[in-house]
């Protein structure tokens, strides 16, 4: 199994750390992983993205132009990456701030109101974990227990008291993700 993922949104939404937790989770189940961030002008201009690959074999290129999954968290990223999803692939997005909804019919599309849900829970910091939960509901490529292990590895110990909130967010994300289109 190889899963090639792009996660894209604004800086500060936790795009890079969501990717990092996914990569750690893959590592916990002994997969090869790579995490390649955008750095430089695009990040300084406000948008950030990261390519994450999990594989049972050797990972070839850490930099890609086609993805199995795109997790999209703002309009700029939708414009940039909707066409870059492989036919039959997955697009997961938060409709908050999206004015042009995805049009493709040959991919599976899901939406998740993660922003709204995070506000409701009063936990804006775990917004990205709600999204991650939604993704893992659709594609359970890593086990929840390995995500928790990954969180423990990637978070400094002073934040470990927040792990239960993160777990709650992942579970909530799994509940609220909505199917929008099935690939034809």
């Amino acid at each position, binding site marked *: 199994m190889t899963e090639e993922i792009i996660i894209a949104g604004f800086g500060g939404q936790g795009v890079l750390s969501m990717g990092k937790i996914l990569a750690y989770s893959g590592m916990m189940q002994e997969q090869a*992983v790579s*995490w390649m961030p955008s750095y*430089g002008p695009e990040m300084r201009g406000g948008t950030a993205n990261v390519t994450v690959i999990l594989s049972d074999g050797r990972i070839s290129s850490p930099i*890609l132009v086609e993805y199995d999954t795109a997790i999209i968290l703002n309009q700029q990223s939708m414009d940039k990456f909707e066409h870059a999803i492989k036919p039959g692939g997955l697009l997961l997005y938060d409709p908050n701030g999206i004015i042009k909804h995805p049009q493709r019919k040959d991919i599976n599309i899901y939406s998740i109101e993660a922003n709204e849900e995070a506000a409701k829970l009063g936990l804006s910091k775990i917004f990205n974990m709600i999204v991650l939960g939604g993704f893992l509901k659709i594609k359970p490529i890593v086990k929840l227990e390995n995500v928790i292990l990954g969180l423990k590895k990637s978070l400094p110990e002073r934040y470990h008291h927040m792990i239960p909130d993160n777990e709650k967010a992942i579970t909530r994300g799994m509940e609220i993700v909505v199917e929008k289109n099935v690939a034809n």
Partner: protein
Amino acid sequence: MKELRLMKGNEAVAEAAIRAGADGYFGYPITPQSEVLEYLMTEKPYEKTGMVVLQAESEIAAINMVYGGASCGKKVMTSSSSPGISLKQEGLSYIAGAELPCLVVNVVRGGPGLGTIQPSQSDYFQATKGGGHGDYRLIVLAPASVQEMADFAKLGFELAFKYRNPVMILSDGAIGQMMEKVELEEQKPRWTDEEIVEISPWATTGKTPDRERNIITSLDLDSHRHEKHNEKLQAKYKKIQENEVRYEKIHCDDAEYIFVAYGTSARICQKSIELGRKKGIKIGLFRPITLFPYPSNALRELSQGLKGILSVEMNAGQMIEDIKLSVGTTFNVEHFGRMGGVIPTPNEVLEALEQKIIGG
């Protein structure tokens, strides 16, 4: 026991240097390699192993601190990215001339000039053909993964001391910035003063009554003596060419065509191979790991069964000169590359092969 971690390439080379028992790091921040210095400052190896970590006032100061540390037989290093490495060239020429061991990491970004902060391979000529003045060579290692960033820190120090020669890890912004799994070796103790005297009897460790003064210099105003010194250097480079060639062959057994690529380009070519083999093209990858010494003999041997070679580099075509020197100018070799910090896509690399080599 080995330890498994998820790290950036820049962090891995720093951690591996600590574990290899390095005595000192001297650097100056520049994107995309600043994490090397940042990581070392966070880890504070000076509290654990006694390794010195110092942010110098400039790149030039940093390389001259390396010159000083290396003169004393210490395991010392610096790192920078392209414009900063240009500033270090005078120091590197002096260090090579004085035959001192040290490790230099170049996390290459696009040039010329200040250029861009995005990944590039446009410093190949500078790294492999000289860079500074005079007839000298660096040993140049080209990592294609985070694991190799770590492995080559240790290997780099070993080769530097084996040949009393500066070693460069020629990386790029992508390898420096990305995270992968990395297996780290156990902490090696730093050399004691006694060990340094034994390992490097040439070092300026303080004159004792039983030996002459050790003098470290790159200057000799007697031309004939200096020619002898140059001949000694050339003999050393020849020995390095005979003994230290490293490369990797991927899917070359049944290949009719190959890519030749190092670093990030080599990773992209592996994806192009996946795509090409799905279309029935018998294609492989020859990945030089040492850029000096270049694996010329191995490439020449491999080329004998091949219909063509595509050199893939993130530059205007630099390594292709070494490929042509290896396989001859009549062989079907072309270059494909992107410049200025643009990373080629696996698809366009495959298309270039189809158009320039298979169809050409």
